[in-house]
């Protein structure tokens, strides 16, 4: 958007931007489910607004104006497509030429049904449809729901902008070509569809939280968007406890953001963090949401993980952490989410509660049929820590060095090498 727009126009466009889900929804319906056409129409409508509003003034109903302009853009697209199939309309009277609606053509407010919250829900569930690849869901949600442009998303995920742009185009085309419907699931379908949305939101948060480049604006933006999304979901689905659990977990995790990276850009593990840097407002918000979820009978995986995050975030120090309670929570989580990563987290907690030998035994007992752990640094790092605590320094050093070779980014690699060097 141009910097030289008058303030009134800027403000109106910004306000309309916050309604983007509703605007997009109206155009998706007008386009009979064609996501691609609707998005193009919306951006053409916005372009028209930036050209026309400074000249003619902000209309009484900016959203109504934008939807009308969008519909005209759709007609124009459709007639172009029709003209490629047959010759017609030699005088070009079919759509009148301009995308901007002329006076008298603007559809009044009361004819447009803004679904509001319902549209937000429809958009999120459509962007997170299981028929889309996980990476596509993340990109599309950030783009269509959160309003991030392709270049911002590509910077956040450290991919080429062209790659990201292609990913978005393919996702939108798939929605159109495969007939992914623009609707929210019924309560019967929620059990199957909700976890996918929650996972997508979590992926967005994790990307922001991972701080692979140290603290920067994009990372914080991603965490904030994820929290916003989780918050919308919790508000729109008040009877569901898992969205509450997710939001609680994100608040409790995000509370530790400032303490996670040292001044030198190094990773600071949980036991080493300066807890005075934790954001207590977020801790309180997270705990309160968790309490609400538990009171409503929430016992799903996200509620459990929020409870785990709460145990860490409320302990005054690493030593004060209720490790036995954490092991219990992991035991419960493993019943519903039997993943090797969760088992590994549990092993760490066992180590804190019952000593390094128990920790080693727990790690070695983990079944890993998918082989996911074998190629991850995490398992070796936990083994190294157990060995270190038992005084088996040479083995510990070797484990940390092997782990560093499997690290996913520089920060983690440096961290593991430091731990290796500390064993002598």
């Amino acid at each position: 958007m141009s910097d030289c727009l008058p303030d009134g126009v800027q403000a109106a466009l910004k306000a309309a931007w916050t309604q983007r889900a509703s605007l997009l929804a109206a155009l998706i319906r007008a386009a009979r489910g064609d996501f691609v056409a609707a998005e193009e129409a919306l951006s053409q409508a916005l372009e028209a607004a930036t050209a026309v509003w400074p000249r003619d003034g902000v209309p009484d109903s900016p959203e109504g104006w934008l939807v009308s302009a969008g519909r005209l853009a759709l007609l124009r697209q459709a007639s172009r497509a029709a003209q490629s199939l047959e010759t017609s309309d030699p005088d070009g009277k079919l759509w009148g030429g301009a995308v901007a609606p002329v006076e008298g053509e603007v559809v009044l407010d009361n004819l447009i049904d803004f679904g509001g919250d319902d549209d937000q829900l429809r958009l999120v569930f459509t962007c997170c449809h299981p028929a889309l690849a996980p990476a596509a869901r993340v990109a599309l949600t950030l783009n269509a729901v959160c309003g991030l442009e392709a270049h911002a998303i590509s910077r956040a995920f450290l991919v080429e902008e062209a790659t990201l742009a292609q990913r978005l185009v393919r996702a939108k085309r798939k929605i159109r070509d495969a007939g992914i419907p623009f609707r929210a699931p019924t309560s019967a379908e929620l059990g199957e569809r909700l976890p996918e949305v929650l996972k997508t939101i979590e992926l967005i948060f994790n990307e922001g939280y991972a701080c692979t480049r140290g603290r920067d604006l994009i990372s914080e933006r991603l965490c904030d968007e994820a929290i916003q999304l989780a918050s919308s979901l919790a508000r729109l689905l008040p009877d569901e406890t898992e969205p509450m659990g997710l939001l609680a977990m994100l608040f409790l995790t995000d509370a530790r953001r400032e303490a996670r990276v040292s001044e030198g850009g190094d990773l600071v593990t949980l036991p080493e963090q300066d807890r005075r840097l934790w954001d207590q407002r977020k801790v309180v918000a997270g705990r309160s949401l968790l309490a609400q979820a538990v009171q409503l009978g929430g016992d799903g995986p996200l509620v459990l993980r929020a409870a785990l995050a709460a145990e860490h975030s409320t302990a005054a120090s690493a030593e004060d952490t209720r490790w036995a309670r954490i092991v219990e929570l992991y035991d419960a989580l493993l019943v519903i989410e039997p993943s090797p990563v969760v088992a590994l987290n549990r092993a760490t907690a066992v180590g804190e509660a019952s000593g390094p030998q128990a920790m080693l035994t727990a790690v070695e007992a983990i079944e890993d049929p998918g082989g996911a752990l074998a190629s991850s640094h995490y398992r070796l790092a936990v083994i190294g820590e157990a060995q270190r605590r038992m005084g088996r320094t040479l083995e510990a050093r070797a484990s940390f060095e092997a782990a560093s070779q499997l690290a996913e980014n520089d920060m983690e690699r440096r961290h593991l090498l430091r731990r290796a060097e500390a064993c002598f």
Partner: protein
Amino acid sequence: MKYLLMIYVDEAVENAMSEAEMGTLMEGYGRLVEEMEAEGVLQGGERLQQVAAATSITSRSGSFAITDGAFAETKEQLGGYILIEAPSLDEAIGWAKKIPSAIHGTIEVRPIWELDEPPLAESAQADNSVAADS
């Protein structure tokens, strides 16, 4: 929209079934077809013979090569197909889940390529049919 539901199964799994199990499977298909016909969604469908009866042809440097078997050796093979008419992907997926072989195989759901629809008519009001659900 029309969708092709392609039924992929490991032939070894079906070959290992007892007569009773196979009977139950076939009955399941019978019931599904009845249900699809009653709903008016069935457009066609067949069970294929196993890949031992298949022949493949490919073009190599200008001439055709004819070989015995399927186009590729895969763990699961195409065992049959059902062509349906459904309002959206979600309904097509719903039908795919009901296919008896879905439990031990994979069902690929692919939309049929259809010619462009005629241009949109200007409608004075938004289409609120989606507001009816959830």
